């Protein structure tokens, strides 16, 4: 008989420690904040008919363990004009665009997904240099961006090919 008050106390303590039910019936865990739009991985770039500009991006990755994922944004005359698909750094990715004719200023922005964390824009000092590219009728300008040494070095090569009739 002397044990009854002790048992009642334990029952009360256990009830206080149990998770509370919300109205929806789920436990009250903190909500995950939404990922900002600029840090979201881009969707597959849309198919462009009769492109006059092709961006090709790849990276030399000697060690497969270092082969993370990345994508590249392109800005034409200061406005974002597209993104490459997300892919392995060592994979060659192409972005085809139809740009207005003329001498356009191209700026590329490299984004990488670190082992832990969100999509991160590569440091300014490691981004490819800005340059002009002339868009001419009847030709396709091909700009090739190649990273090496873990994005610490890049080369940018411009070439031109005849557009298919």
């Amino acid at each position, binding site marked *: 008989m002397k044990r009854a008050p002790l048992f009642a106390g334990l029952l009360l303590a256990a009830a206080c420690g149990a998770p509370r039910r919300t109205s929806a019936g789920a436990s009250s865990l903190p909500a995950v904040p939404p990922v900002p739009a600029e840090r979201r991985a881009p969707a597959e770039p849309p198919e462009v008919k009769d492109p006059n500009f092709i961006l090709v991006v790849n990276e030399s990755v000697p060690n497969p363990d270092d082969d993370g994922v990345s994508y590249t944004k392109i800005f034409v005359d200061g406005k974002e004009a597209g993104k490459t698909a997300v892919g392995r750094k060592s994979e060659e990715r192409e972005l085809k665009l139809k740009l207005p004719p003329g001498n356009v200023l191209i700026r590329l922005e490299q984004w990488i997904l670190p082992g832990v964390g969100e999509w991160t824009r590569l440091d300014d000092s490691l981004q490819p240099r800005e*340059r002009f590219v002339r868009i001419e009728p009847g030709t396709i300008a091909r700009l090739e961006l190649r990273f090496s040494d873990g994005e*610490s*070095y890049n080369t940018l090569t411009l070439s031109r090919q005849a557009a298919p009739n």
Partner: protein
Amino acid sequence: MFTMSPLKRFPKKLILCLAPLLISCGPTKEKEPNYSYQQATPLKPGATGVGTMKDSKEAHWWRLDVPTEGVLSAKLGGIRDIDFVISAYDKDRRELVRVDETTVGGDEQLLDLGVSPGVYYLTVSNKNPAANNPAQEYKLVTKLEPSAGREREPNFSALTAQPIEAGGVVRGWYWPTKNLLSDDPNAQGVDHWFSVDVQKQGLFLLNVDVSEVPKVDPVLEVYDTNNYKLVAVDQGGIGEGESLRNFGVRGPAKYLLRLRSKYDNAGNPDVPFDLMTELLPYQGRTEFEPNNQRADATPFEGDSIQGTIAPAGDADWYKVSVATEAKYLLRADLSGVPGMDLVLTLKDSVGNDLLVVDNAGKEQPEVLTGYGVTKGDYYLVVTEKTGRKADSRNSYTLAKKLIPWQTGLEWEPNDSTAAVQGLKVGDSVDGYFAPKGDLDWYEFNVYQKGVVELDLTGVINVTPTMTLFDQEYKPLAAASAAKPGEPVVLTRELDRGTYDVRLQPADPAQNNVRDKYSFRVIAK
């Protein structure tokens, strides 16, 4: 004053009476028959044995009771008609060494047989079937000496290698020249094997010097305990020594040294070789041989390191690791070596050439003025240009600096349109026309049509040229200095667009590793 010669105090008759007694203290006469070990004539180590070859077909056995550890040598005086062979046996009649270096009438020498207290036998035999000289006496002169600092033959195989302390001198002989007891019928020459047991834990440098011996061209090799040859040194010729420097040893470990005469039948019983070894703790100030390939590169962590080009064709690899994400310019200075034209090559983490520095000639230093590096491993490789020279006594010094890169400094490689270095109008950049054949490309954007001036300062020894290209890499204009050391200026009205500039010496052989140029793009 009274003086008198001691001999004059004895009558001549007394001297003659004592003569036989005096003679009995001289050479030991063989006691025939001595044609087997049981019949062997006892001979004190250090004494001389005398005998005749009455029965020239039988070997004459001599028994030596060796009282202490030491090295035993024997010289057998040649006699007419006899082609001597001398052999040494242990107490169980196992033949240890056989010497047959001369032909009929020649002396034979057995040198530095390692002995312990106990019984040994020497046999004297004849190889000439037509020998007929029963009367003339041969002399077998023996000598027993302490073995400290001496080679103990037979050490003719890796299995019988003589243990030596690293840090001392061992004296030995390229004699005999033939190993007549070898199982291999094609085996020629005699190898001298020594084992060095490094018992301490850690990194050490082993230096080995072999002294010169007339008539002999020595070859020194180092093996591990698996019998893998790690290095061979053969830079000297006949009558010259050999030297192994900075051979890296990871203790505890055992290494085998094999010393031999390059040419069969070449030896010298009159002049010994000295094998000097030295074991030093490795402190990162010298190369760690073998460092002849990327996998064995010596870590280059300090500001400078020393090395030698030996043997001929040696390539010394040094690993430079950049640990941080920052950008650096790697500068390297390589000193000259007498009689050699050194070449310095920079390689990437997988061993591909990034830059070859071969600006200067023989005995002159080489300078890598600056190459852009980021986090990762790089290799500096030092070679001799012809691949035929070696010098283990004169070392080179390779110094390096990692200079944090900043805007305004040239970033090599910028030698192509793909690797062009970006520059803003109004900014300047300092760079080098080096190494030989260097081309430097810069790129700038013009956002509004206007007049742009390109200024390049002059540097000694270089006549610079400047070429301006449009964004499709079509040349627009070019300018050149009138003579070496003079500046170049190019002014032009440019439309909105991207432009490239190529700077280069008028003659690709021109270079300057000391003075920087300064290049500036100015909007007028």
